[in-house]
């Protein structure tokens, strides 16, 4: 395994892979530093550029964006008190107070180095567990796959929103989108309403781009207008710090670093519960285990280390699920899945054995991106901070144009751009209707596979009880049921306490 990893690192060190990786990391940091621009948005913007690249070049660029974005978000959180993105909210709780106490350099670099170490620990998990999990998934038949996808969908629906019904309904709407078009067995047209371009089905990338890009852009547009100005100018803070001292501050808390990184990885493995949940949960855990919980929120280093280690290790966890099972861990990996399918590559249990160069190239790109991130932070952190002053009136038209290019270039058809527009309206409408977007997207991604495996299972043996009596399949369906019951219990408990859980999805 480690020989393959070493070969992967040597491979990615070649200029043709290293340059996209470095550029992706830089773009990720910049996107992360911009308040309101999430990693999903940044990776969507980068997507069309990857169409003309080799698969590993494109994936390296996207991984760079992912890693860079998770780290870039902490810049504005620590120094300006504005979270660059949802997954750096908890970083702000202690990062900004530390800055206000006159230690901006310490706050920033604690976050950057914690991101680095947390990310590398996530990498150890990624490299160590993907292959065994993929081998386990090779034992799966259509019954197990069907049950696994149902489990993923039920978990997302249960964990992402204030209401289980809304989460499940959103997932079901995602599945409805996938039944439009020719059926996968006989190719008979279904629900196409006589529209020719619907016969081939609705590709998921324009749906994903439309739903997320517009839901987010329109959310920001709502807050724009006369008299609602953007961030004011700022005075550049002094960021000089002793790196050895900062690194020691992190490494002298090994248990907390390991535990919060593990939380990040675990949350990354669960579909759709991404960096923001990892960031907040790790912060909460660090506070619970701390000898001085009262210091949290006043600028304590533990708060910064825990939250940043978790959101970067989370990336490793998200990559495990897509590489071992073909299930995206969050929206960023969903876009990566789309990029892979455009190149004719299907992630899943066979991915690592059939495409070892690509798989280990992904591992290598993930690990190297952390070193590149550190290098860019050393060079340009002061410049990244200035990016928050770029007006959204300039950014949004550019983002929308890149979304259009991304949708059109999938197969050079305007139909995808029409889907983008319709899904933009759908996404914004769903957000306004209080429906979470994560289950919708997972439904769109998994819908075809759910149907194919259901049909395959029934055509192999028409005994429906096999879904329950085969141990892994039955176990997964039981887990799906437990996740729904757990979500119900959690929601009822929150209602009794008078607090309704917020939508915590990163999709």
């Amino acid at each position: 395994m480690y020989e393959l990893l070493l070969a992967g690192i040597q491979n990615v060190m070649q200029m043709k892979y290293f340059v996209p990786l470095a550029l992706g990391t830089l773009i990720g940091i910049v996107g992360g530093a911009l308040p309101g621009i999430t990693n999903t948005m940044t990776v969507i913007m980068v997507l069309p550029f990857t169409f003309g690249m080799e698969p590993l070049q494109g994936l390296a660029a996207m991984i760079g964006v992912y890693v860079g974005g998770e780290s870039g978000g902490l810049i504005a959180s620590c120094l300006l008190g504005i979270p660059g993105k949802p997954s750096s909210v908890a970083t702000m709780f202690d990062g900004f107070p530390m800055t206000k106490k006159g230690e901006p350099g310490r706050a920033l670099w604690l976050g950057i180095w914690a991101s680095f170490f947390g990310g590398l620990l996530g990498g150890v998990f990624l490299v160590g567990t993907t292959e065994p999990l993929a081998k386990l998934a090779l034992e799966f038949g259509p019954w197990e796959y069907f049950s696994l996808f149902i489990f993923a969908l039920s978990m997302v629906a249960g964990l992402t929103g204030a209401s289980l019904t809304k989460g499940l309904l959103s997932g079901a709407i995602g599945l409805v989108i996938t039944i439009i078009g020719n059926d996968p067995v006989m190719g008979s047209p279904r629900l196409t309403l006589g529209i020719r371009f619907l016969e081939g089905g609705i590709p998921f990338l324009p749906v994903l781009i439309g739903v997320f890009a517009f839901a987010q852009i329109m959310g920001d547009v709502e807050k724009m207008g006369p008299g609602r100005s953007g961030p004011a100018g700022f005075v550049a803070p002094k960021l000089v710090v002793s790196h050895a001292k900062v690194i020691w501050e992190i490494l002298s808390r090994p248990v907390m670093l390991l535990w919060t990184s593990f939380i990040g990885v675990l949350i990354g493995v669960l579909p759709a519960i991404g960096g923001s949940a990892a960031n907040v949960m790790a912060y909460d855990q660090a506070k619970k285990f701390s000898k001085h919980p009262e210091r949290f929120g006043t600028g304590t280093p533990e708060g910064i280390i825990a939250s940043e280690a978790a959101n970067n290790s989370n990336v490793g966890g998200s990559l495990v699920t897509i590489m071992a099972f073909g299930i995206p861990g969050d929206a960023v990996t969903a876009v990566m899945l789309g990029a892979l399918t455009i190149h004719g590559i299907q992630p899943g249990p066979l991915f690592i054995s059939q495409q070892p160069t690509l798989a280990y190239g992904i591992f290598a790109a993930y690990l190297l991106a952390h070193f590149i991130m550190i290098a860019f932070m050393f060079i340009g952190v002061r410049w990244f901070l200035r990016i928050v002053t770029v007006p959204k009136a300039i950014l949004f038209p550019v983002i929308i144009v890149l979304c259009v290019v991304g949708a059109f270039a999938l197969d050079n058809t305007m139909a995808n751009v029409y889907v983008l527009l319709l899904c933009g309206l759908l996404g914004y409408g769903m957000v306004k209707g209080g429906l979470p977007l994560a289950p919708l997207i997972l439904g769109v991604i998994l819908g075809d596979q759910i149907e194919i495996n259901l049909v395959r299972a029934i055509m192999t043996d028409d005994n429906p009880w096999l879904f329950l009596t085969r141990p892994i399949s039955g176990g997964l369906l039981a887990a799906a049921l437990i996740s729904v019951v757990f979500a119900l219990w959690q929601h009822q408990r929150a209602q009794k306490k008078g607090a309704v859980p917020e939508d915590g999805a990163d999709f």
Partner: protein
Amino acid sequence: MKLSKDGWTGLAALAASLILFALTLDLKPSPLVPIGPGFYPRIVLGITAVLAAALVLFDLLAPPAPAATASGANYALVLAVFVTFGLYVGALPYLGFRISTLLFVAALQGVLDPPKTRRAWIVAAVTALVTTAVCYIVFERYLQVLLPRGRWTEF
């Protein structure tokens, strides 16, 4: 009884799923495979309808929520952005990528933050020009990704 936002969302989803469910009844079963093309869509649409109905029901049974305070959201601007984008999408097949993108980027900047000074006009114009030129050069020339051609302009 008055429906809230959830109730209306549920009703819309219920109506759509029932219409689509009715359309699946026209799908003919296949003689070659034990389950026809309508089998899975009916399950999915049935579940969707049940969930949508549940959302409406829960909304009706829920105690009345306190009157929502005005959110201050600028919906007129949201509508203007969607309309501008719709016009852009409509113009792309006729004017092609270069002209429609140039117009769209300039127009959307004007919609989001109308330029008031000479400098702001120049920034808007340069942004539109640079975005269009960079996209064209990077995608068409460097990455060999085709961009929409216009029927009227033939480029």
